[in-house]
């Protein structure tokens, strides 16, 4: 499973891999470039693939006032 943690909410979910970052956005109903996907301290581009065992952080980036 891919472990996905949301920042700053600290919510966690698990998803079945493999998934590309593009597919991950679609699954989470997010538009591309409304969040950063971070793995091991690096931002991932949409073509990269997430495998089972990966831990990723999703930073939703819209300003909240």
């Amino acid at each position: 499973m891919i472990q996905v943690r949301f920042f700053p909410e600290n919510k966690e979910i698990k998803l079945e891999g493999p998934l590309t970052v593009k597919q991950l956005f679609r699954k989470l109903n997010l538009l591309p470039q409304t969040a950063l996907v971070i793995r091991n301290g690096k931002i991932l581009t949409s073509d990269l693939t997430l495998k089972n065992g990966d831990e990723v952080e999703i930073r939703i980036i819209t300003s909240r006032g």
Partner: protein
Amino acid sequence: MKCRRCGKQAEIELRSHHTAFCRDCFKLYFLRQVKRAIKEQHMFSPRERILVAVSGGKDSLTLWHILLELGYNASGLFVDLKIGGFSEHAREKVEKFAQKRDAKLIIVDLEKEGIPIPKVVKKTGKEPCAICGQVKRYFFNRIAYEQKFHILATGHNLDDETSRLLANLLRWQMSYLVDQGPVLPPAYRLVKKVKPLYRLTEYEIAAYAFINNIDYFAGKCPFSKGATFLRYKHYINQIEYEFPGTKLDFYQGFLKKMKPFLTPFQREETTSSQVCPRCGYPTLAPLCGICRLKEEIEKAG
């Protein structure tokens, strides 16, 4: 995906530019965009004193970080709104940021001013985002003017600007449209306002903040739930998704093709030197919005 500039693995994909960069090349791209905004829009010179309005969020702290990096004389101003569970965390991030960089920070405490936002909302029933914006704009300008800053800089980004432009256009709000732009010239007791990040999207700013370890506050204001500006941002992002590059074209097009026609209106509306008899700052009403608000709160007890 490879970095367009150096061929290394890319981290930041820019759909609107049909390109991608590694973090080092992205930093260069980002700084170039900020420098271009400052130069092309004649925002300020290295000699001028800049006051950066900081909220603790990614945009304003990134702006302050960059101006300091570029060697500008930039101080910060934080307005403590006194919204419990929100303002104290934002303030802590701003104070830590300033301390780490040994930068000057000014804080306005709305409790001391008698108008903490929760109290204002409770006593007047006014729309929180509108009132909060009005209070912040007033103190940003007042502190900048009183402490003799040449420039007031805010962290508004391309998403802020395009969502506001769309909202104003949909309602043909001419008086707001004339004031929209990356630079608002100085007027009587009004300090020149600039938006050096106007060419950059929230995504680009968030990426820059992340790769530069800028420790920002990402909390959600309890009053902003369902705020209309967030809906407009969402709609703009949907258009951008289908037609990458629209945001920048929309805003640049407005600045180049429509803004010049609005200038005569702007002059007409800002020549008044009418001032508030209480605080001395410009207003077209008998009392300025903030003094009226203070009076309302005092009456309500």
